[in-house]
């Protein structure tokens, strides 16, 4: 089988890519995409550690990933609803234009 | 209290009845399988104009005198008429060219209404598709000329009225012309020669 390091490296790089996107893009939706990718990188770590761990019958990693997926879905729904609400208010989804506290 | 979904079931039963019924009750099938079967022609149907001629000669028997009223009145200007002249250039009261471009014609029947000679009438022919859409849909005089019998077959009531009127006019003209010069310019009275 493939050494665990490989999966961890993939997860770390995925996290880095997601972080770069979230930090640099102007559009709120793309920032959300970056955050989703970071969450997925964490999930990959959970699964990898579960698979290579000493006690895979415990299912801890799988269950954690399962809950993380569910919570990520909730986060995406609320986040995108926020984006839509903000768009309705300010007619833009560019994050650097949202600089007013008063709508 | 109406139960949700009962209406759906009623509809389903209705279509199921159609399905079964269409197999054992041919009267349900309203489809006319066109090239083999045809609907009986309707008397008031109309499609594109044709030229009526009396007698057997499609050239000399044309009622058209090339007065060009229809050409002038035609809204899409799809009629083209050239008057025939003899060697001396004298007009002959007869069209040398009579073309109708039926790709332009809009079947308005105005030409029929304005014609003082009942020379142009509406045909019901509709199978007009051609491989050549420019030349093929430009009908020339020989294509347009149809006997009076044809007119009677398409619109019997109307044709009978027209014949009666023409006969009356001719009789009146003959009575008036009797003292004067002997032969009328157009020889044939409206005839339904073979059909009658």
């Amino acid at each position, binding site marked *: 089988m493939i050494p665990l390091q490989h999966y961890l490296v993939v997860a770390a790089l995925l996290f880095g890519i997601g972080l770069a996107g979230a930090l640099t893009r102007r559009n709120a939706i793309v920032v959300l995409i970056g955050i989703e990718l970071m969450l997925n990188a964490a999930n990959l770590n959970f699964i990898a550690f579960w698979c290579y761990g000493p006690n895979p019958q415990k299912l801890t990693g799988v269950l954690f990933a399962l809950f993380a997926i569910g919570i990520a879905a909730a986060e995406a729904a609320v986040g995108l609803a926020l984006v839509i609400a903000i768009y309705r208010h300010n007619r833009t989804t560019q994050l650097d234009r949202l600089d007013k506290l008063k709508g | 209290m*109406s*139960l*949700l979904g009962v209406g759906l079931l009623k509809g*389903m039963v209705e*279509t199921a009845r*159609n*399905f079964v019924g*269409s197999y054992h009750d041919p009267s349900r*099938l*309203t489809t006319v399988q066109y090239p083999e079967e045809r609907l009986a022609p309707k008397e008031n149907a109309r499609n594109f104009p044709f030229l009526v001629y009396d007698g057997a000669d499609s050239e000399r028997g044309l009622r058209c005198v090339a007065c060009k009223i229809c050409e002038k009145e035609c809204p899409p200007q799809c009629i083209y008429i050239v008057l025939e002249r003899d060697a001396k250039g004298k007009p002959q009261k007869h069209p040398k060219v009579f073309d109708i471009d039926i790709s332009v014609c809009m079947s308005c029947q105005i030409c029929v209404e304005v014609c003082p000679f009942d020379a142009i009438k509406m045909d019901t022919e509709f199978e007009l598709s051609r491989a050549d859409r420019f030349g093929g849909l430009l009908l020339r005089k020989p294509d347009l000329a149809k006997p009076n019998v044809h007119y009677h077959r398409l619109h019997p009531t109307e044709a009978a009225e027209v014949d009666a009127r023409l006969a009356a006019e001719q009789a009146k003209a003959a009575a008036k012309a009797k003292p004067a010069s002997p032969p009328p310019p157009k020889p044939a009275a409206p005839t339904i020669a073979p059909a009658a």
Partner: protein
Amino acid sequence: MANPLDQLFVLLKQWLVALLPVGLQPLLSMVLSAAAIIAVFASLFAVTTLLERKGLGRLQNRLGPNRTGPFGILQPLADGLKMLTKEDIVPEAADQVVHFLAPLVMVVPVLTAYAVLPMGRNMVAVDFDGGVLFFFAVGASTELSVFMAGWASRNKYSLLGAMRAIAQMISYEVPLVLASVTVVMTVGSLSLVRIVQSQSGYHWGWLARWHVFTPWGLAGLLLFLIAAAAECNRTPFDIPEGESEIIAGHLVEYSGFKYALFFLGEYLGMFAVSSLGISLFLGGWEAPVSFLTWIPSYVWFFGKLLGFISLFIWLRGTLPRLRTDQLMNFAWKFLLPMTLVNLVAAAGWHFSAGWSFPGALAWRWLFSAAVVGVPYLALGHALAGRVHLGPRSYRYAT
């Protein structure tokens, strides 16, 4: 279970696979299964288009196609030839790559979904734990393909159609999954083979133990059917296509072979969902009564599938198209509560399995039927007076 007629195709495959060296056998096994699935369901698609056109005709007192070949049986061939020889038009403003990929994203996942569907005794390409989940997971990509088609065409009708289609598919996926979950819950397995096997055996020696013969199973099948019709964009839920309003929705800019692929994908999706319904509620390959077990299992499966297809055609010939708001109201106000209630009914049925006092079966039936029936009547009563689901009133027409 070594009835050779029943296992005809399984034995044939085993014989063919055994001809090859051991190293290549798994590969050949996979290829054979995939080829059989593609061949069978593609021809079923051809048959269905003919059946649909003839059947719709008869439902509306018409003749249907009867010009190509005797009784028009060559019509699918003519349609196919027409589709293949048509010019493939891509709009100039379209996103070329996405426009090209959309039909593929539609067809390929649908075909993979067939891998977990059992089509007869021992006739399943991959039997793995989690088959139902796999089915719904690959089904989810259909929505993406519809969006790709709608957006890449750069046509407002396409985009509108795609938005409608996605909203509809997401809304109806919830009741579809919830209606399936009842069976998964009572059987205790996500594997479709296990689910079908759990329905083998006969009540009182003759009536099959299908889930549809329980109150929650019947309700579940009906709810599943409604959601399935919406999920595959079949009339009365074909709003995304709505020829009269948005010409053909996301298919406007497709022609020729790509359009044919979309068409194929839609029908394959319908067959797949029908097969899932058969496996979940109608006992898959099992015979309905014990004295008909001599008929091979695959005949039963495909017979039931044809029954489902005919039902869908019948529905299409009967019902008019809904409006988008009616569609959404129906999904969220009627279908979703009913599936949840049905889940409760199934749970009650499952836990009352241990009752052993006299008349227990009748009481179970009564209880389960009441749990589904009373909310149905109440919902029907409550919604019938509303604007959305009650009789329509027209402001300008009488």
